[in-house]
């Protein structure tokens, strides 16, 4: 596998992990509509 592809795959994996972590930590609303009032 060419080195540029390896780096691209690594960068995309890091991006995906960042997205997932961001969603878990800040974008994921754990409270339900009924229980929040």
């Amino acid at each position, binding site marked *: 596998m060419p*080195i540029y592809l390896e780096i691209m795959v690594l*960068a995309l994996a890091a991006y995906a992990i960042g997205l997932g972590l961001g969603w878990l930590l800040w974008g994921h609303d754990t409270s339900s509509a009924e229980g929040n009032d």
Partner: protein
Amino acid sequence: MPVRPTLAIIAGALVTASIGAAGSRWTGDPLIDRIEAQAEQAIAAAGASGVDASFSSPNGFRSRHPVLSGGERLDEATRDRVAKAVAAVPGVGGVRWADGTANAESGTLVLTPLHCQDDVEALLRARSIRFEESSSKIDAGSRELLDEVAMALRPCLGSIIAITGHTDASGPKAANLALSRERAEAVQRALELRGIPRDGLRAQGVGSNEPVEGLAPEDPANRRIEFSVIATVPLHPTPVDTPSAR
């Protein structure tokens, strides 16, 4: 203007991929230059002149996976050493020879005895297969032990089981050798009767040549039968099987 999240994620991925591809010029190329120089040194240190490590993929892109060429005249041991030396350079991925497909990093196949050898050894540690004095007739009391040995060998069916007979050093050497072989063959026959196929059994006798470590050669405790499980044995063709010259 609100941006749809899916579009934002895809745009982000594209930007990340572009940065990765563009960034490989600044990070990837110097890495390849460095490992290429180190690989050259490793090849020279391994004593193989004329071997070239090409760090390019078939499409011409630079890669961490070198293809070695120019080693057609080298013997297998040197090729193995060169490939391992290149594979040991930090940063190098899989190494292969241009004229062979085997991955060098896999190294030689290590044969590990199957666990049934441990089971048999455990059985024979406490008790031993006994024979009648100066005879290859198995003592009646050892039949039960042989049943257990046959049961323990069953998981290893399909592999080669070597049965080695040993004697102590008392008596003439030639007679001991013959007796140890006869006893190993008697055990082989007994195991065949218990359902272990003949094909997988190899009986041999070594007389008193290999005493137990730490015991005097004359010690009667050297009289024993040992089992070893060989996962594979190379087959040597007999003259009848040998193909004719090309």
